[in-house]
């Protein structure tokens, strides 16, 4: 087993190294084979590991390879921890990752940086696997910062464009703010509970409530808000769309951004013990879900819409975590990975057909020209909107049911966000694929369906988006909720759904009715009435402008954080360094000027002279001691 886990993690790294060092000498098909093949093999090994795990004692496999960070009581090994939670994650990462690698072969085919792209993408998968398989918080952090690095490299993949470079830098720095929280959280965790290894922390009674528990939970959560793009650190994710679209699908939708959810679930004992921390997680999640959904309703860039949608959906997952509904959030992570990856890849296919255009105001009527893309995206849109029996319905419904039980106000946030989701997703779908084409006749002739290397991954993901709900069919309809039971041994403190069946049916009814109503509203607006988004920003109403400009949060951060820090830097440099310290030095030197004159006379640059002077001084010192 030790070797299987090693293989899962190291194969992508190997692929990355080979393509990174030799990529330019290899043919494109070799590069593609190495990159996708390494992930494919890793996926196969993940399935084997998953099967073997089922017969392992307590369904946990812990492997230590060697001592890594060792200091006093702190003894962190380099090792892997395969349990119910990480086994699901590695399947999603390598499975969806493989599909996206294959899709990328088509999408990136004409790019000069083909091998560099795959080298980065493989490296990302390596770090993501480290993140979920590491058997301590510190090894999780290796992956945590590593995926941040790959995200930086891939957002700024087209490095000649400084707008993209800025987006990449912003992503890295905002994540680093969160990472500081993560580091301090780890420090406090170690100080409080004496270890950072899961093997120690998972022992019964290892984690009990202390005065530091809430602080640990909140510091770690700060890390999660960075990585998973939650308020207040969410603004990097929409900008991150500068990267190639498959990157958005893999990193900024399906895997990396869900790392925060993984981390909270991994730390569930700490969060369950701290009501305050859980409430904070719930509020941040709920508000982010609504906030981002509102912004998404007025965006024109197809990728930006999906980016805000991702922020919103992640918010929903954190809302579930706040209600301590850990397995429900993981369930939604998985279904979301299917349909959101599909949406991004579909958007990539649209952009591919449109020759790089991302503005939905210039699209319309594409369903006839790119039918496969349309149908698969339609499926994903239905799934994210929460229409039964598509996958998104089950996972979202489970989260909302738990939240209803936990806090009705937060539940309302979640429901409104979900209704908005159905609205803006169908707005995007209608404006892109229905109606007539608005991009000019030149472009119209150019429109074409993507090659099968791109459409086959779309179809597979479409199937998964439909049937993904099978993982966690609710007990309400007499099913077993497999994922809920499967994750049972990871959740140290259990919460049970204590609602009556009638209330559950009611909640389900409200959710579906809300989604259908929103879709109908979008249909009325964009299909029946044929409303088109305005071309000119000036035509927007004042409140629309505020939303379109994302509530001016970027400008606010610029004003209250970036500028003051740069100003402080200038104060240090211009005032303290140049005036205060140089002033002191100058006055000292004028005092010693006369001394300097004297020293100048003996400055004759002769080494022997200096060494002699040195020796004499030593003798003088010695004689003083005597």
């Amino acid at each position, binding site marked *: 087993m030790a070797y299987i886990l090693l293989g899962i993690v190291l194969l992508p790294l190997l692929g990355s190294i080979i393509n990174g060092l030799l990529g330019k000498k290899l043919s494109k098909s070799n590069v593609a084979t190495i990159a996708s093949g390494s992930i494919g093999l890793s996926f196969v090994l993940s399935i084997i590991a998953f099967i073997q795990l089922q017969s392992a004692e307590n369904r946990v496999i812990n492997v230590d390879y*060697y*001592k*890594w*960070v*060792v*200091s*006093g009581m*702190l003894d962190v090994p*380099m090792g892997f921890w395969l349990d119910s939670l990480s086994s699901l994650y590695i399947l999603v990462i390598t499975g969806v990752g493989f599909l996206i690698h294959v899709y990328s072969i088509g999408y990136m085919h004409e790019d000069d940086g083909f091998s560099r792209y795959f080298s980065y993408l493989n490296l990302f998968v390596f770090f993501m696997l480290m993140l979920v398989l590491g058997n301590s918080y*510190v090894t999780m952090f*290796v992956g*945590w*910062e*590593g995926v941040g*690095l790959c995200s*930086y490299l891939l957002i700024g993949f087209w*490095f*000649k*464009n*400084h707008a993209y*470079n*800025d987006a990449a*830098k912003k992503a*890295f*720095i905002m994540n*680093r*703010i969160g*990472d*500081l929280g993560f*580091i*301090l959280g780890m*420090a*406090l965790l*170690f*100080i409080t509970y004496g270890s950072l290894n899961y093997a120690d922390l998972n022992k019964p009674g290892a984690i009990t409530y202390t005065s530091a528990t809430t*602080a640990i939970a909140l510091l770690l959560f700060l890390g999660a808000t960075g990585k998973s793009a939650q308020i207040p650190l969410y603004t990097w994710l929409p900008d991150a769309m500068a990267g190639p679209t498959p990157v958005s699908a893999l990193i900024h939708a399906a895997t990396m951004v869900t790392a925060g959810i993984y981390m909270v679930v991994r730390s569930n004992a700490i969060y369950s013990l701290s009501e305050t921390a859980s409430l904070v997680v719930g509020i941040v999640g709920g508000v982010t879900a609504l906030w981002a959904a509102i912004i998404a309703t007025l965006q024109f860039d197809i990728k930006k819409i999906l980016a805000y949608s991702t922020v919103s959906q992640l918010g929903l997952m954190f809302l579930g975590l706040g209600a301590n509904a850990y397995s429900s959030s993981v369930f939604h992570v998985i279904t979301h990975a299917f349909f959101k990856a599909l949406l991004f890849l579909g958007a990539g296919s649209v952009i591919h057909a449109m020759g790089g255009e991302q503005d939905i105001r210039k699209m319309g009527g594409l369903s006839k020209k790119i039918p496969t893309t349309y149908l698969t995206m339609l499926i994903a849109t239905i799934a994210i909107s929460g229409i039964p029996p598509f996958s998104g319905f089950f996972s979202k419904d489970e989260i909302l049911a738990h939240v209803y039980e936990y806090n009705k106000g937060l539940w309302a946030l979640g429901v409104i966000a979900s209704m908005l989701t159905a609205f803006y997703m169908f707005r995007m779908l209608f404006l892109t694929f229905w109606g007539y084409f608005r991009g000019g006749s030149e472009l119209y002739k150019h429109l074409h369906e993507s090659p099968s290397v791109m459409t086959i991954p779309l179809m597979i993901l479409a199937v998964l988006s439909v049937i993904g709900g099978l993982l966690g069919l609710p007990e309400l309809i007499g099913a077993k909720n497999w994922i809920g039971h499967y994750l049972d041994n990871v959740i140290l403190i259990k919460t049970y759904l204590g609602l009556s069946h009638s209330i559950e049916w009611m909640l389900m009814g409200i959710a579906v009715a809300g989604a259908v109503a929103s879709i109908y509203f979008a249909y009325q607006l964009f299909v029946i009435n044929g409303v088109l988004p305005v071309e000119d920003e000036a035509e927007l109403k004042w409140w629309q402008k505020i939303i379109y400009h994302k509530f001016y949060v970027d400008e606010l951060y610029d004003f209250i954080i970036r500028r003051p*820090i*740069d100003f*402080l*830097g*200038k*104060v*240090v*440099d211009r005032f303290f*360094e140049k005036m205060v*310290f*140089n002033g*002191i*030095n100058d006055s000292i*030197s004028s005092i*010693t000027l006369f001394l*300097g004159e004297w*020293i100048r006379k003996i400055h004759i*640059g002769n*080494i022997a002279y*200096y060494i002699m002077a*040195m020796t004499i001084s030593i003798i003088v*010192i*010695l004689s003083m*001691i005597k």
Partner: protein
Amino acid sequence: MIGNILIFIPLIGFLALLSPTFRSNARRYALFFVGIEFLVALMAYALNYSDNNSILLKVDYTWINAINAHWHLHVTGVSLSLALLNAIVFLLIYLSVDASQYGEKAYLFYSLGLLMQMAMMGVFLTKDAFSFYIFWELSLIPIYLIGLLWGETGKEKITLKFFLYTFIGSLFMLAGFIYLYHHTALLNENGQKSWDILSFYQAGKLLTPAQQTVVFWFLFLGFAVKIPIFPFHSWQPDTYTNMPVQGTMMLSGLMLKMGLYGLLFWLMPVVPEAVESWRGLTILMAVSGVIYGSLAALVQTDFKRLLAYASMAHVGLISAGILSGTRQAYDGAAMQMFAHGIYVTGLFYVVHLFEKHTGTRNIYQLGGIRNLNGQFSNLFLIILLGSIALPLTHGFIGEFLILVGLAKYQLVWAAIAGLSVILGAVYMLRAYQKMMLGDVVKTNYSFGALEAKDKWGLFLVVFFILLLGIYPQALNYFTSLNISEILK
């Protein structure tokens, strides 16, 4: 035994290169000497692996009978790690020198460098305060001359400031040592005084709190100027910027480690009570340096000067860790001293390559170099990531342990010092973006393939950054034994 060899190889090199026979081929001989030194350091490392108490690693005999000064070297623990660092960094420094860089007087540069290496080797290896001081002061002379002979405009004033600053600091240190030396008489019946480090540990504990405070501040001043700890830093940015880049490598890669090493082994265990009572204030100073240096680095236009401030921030963090006196911070500091030595040398190597290939190191005059030389940009990026402590680089292990140790003392200090995690990413990535990414700036420079020697130099840096990030126990195993001893 092996300690003597480590000190005498560069000493012989220093003398040999001054003689006319070796002058014409100075570069080759210089590389020979630092190469041999490197191999011997590796041997010392291997010896530690088999038996870290081996007789081959120790030397101890009376040197100056009159004052009971000993020639006492022990190549193990942190001394071993810094000896290794000394050997590696000098190899890198001499690799980085270009054939025509120091002109006719190149032999003098190489010769002075070897004297510097020898002196610092002595500082790191000796367990005797008297020779510690001798080596300490001896190391100042060659670097002062290097600055004076090959510095940039304004070098006279800047090198004099540097010299006076650190020299005065050292005098305080010497006074502290002499004070302790006199008190070692109390340790035995016949009143025999000693410069031995262990006697100092014992004698220091006999002092009254007031006496400890005096010794503490005398020694602290000596080390704080060298590191430098805020607000004793004002010689540093100018000196780092003005020195020829190899001189800057010597200062930042190695010489400041003398101060950190001194703080860790020649101060903390010596006067523990005074350390305890002045901990708050000194950590405040060190952490101020972290923030101050980071903020100043944000607005620099000269990449070399930016690195000077960045280095100030990084060593401020190491100092704060040492001053917190916790196990994790000590271990972290021991690792970070090595890691910082490697990556900062790598970064100044990069500065050298900018100057060599483009004639400028001004961030705003450079741009788009990734288009011209992808390999260089990748190597630079890895070194940069090492400097901002990305996991799996050696920098992370040290920085993480220091922050854990600092949090153990007080979480708020870890949080404030930890801001450098964010600010470090800001100023380094900003500079990287300006210099390396985007389109090629329309100035008359090119950036062709790296010379083979430069390529190997950067490979070596990257090799150590990754090796010790992935397998830190390779060094930590030895340094932590050493740390356990002083924490006893």
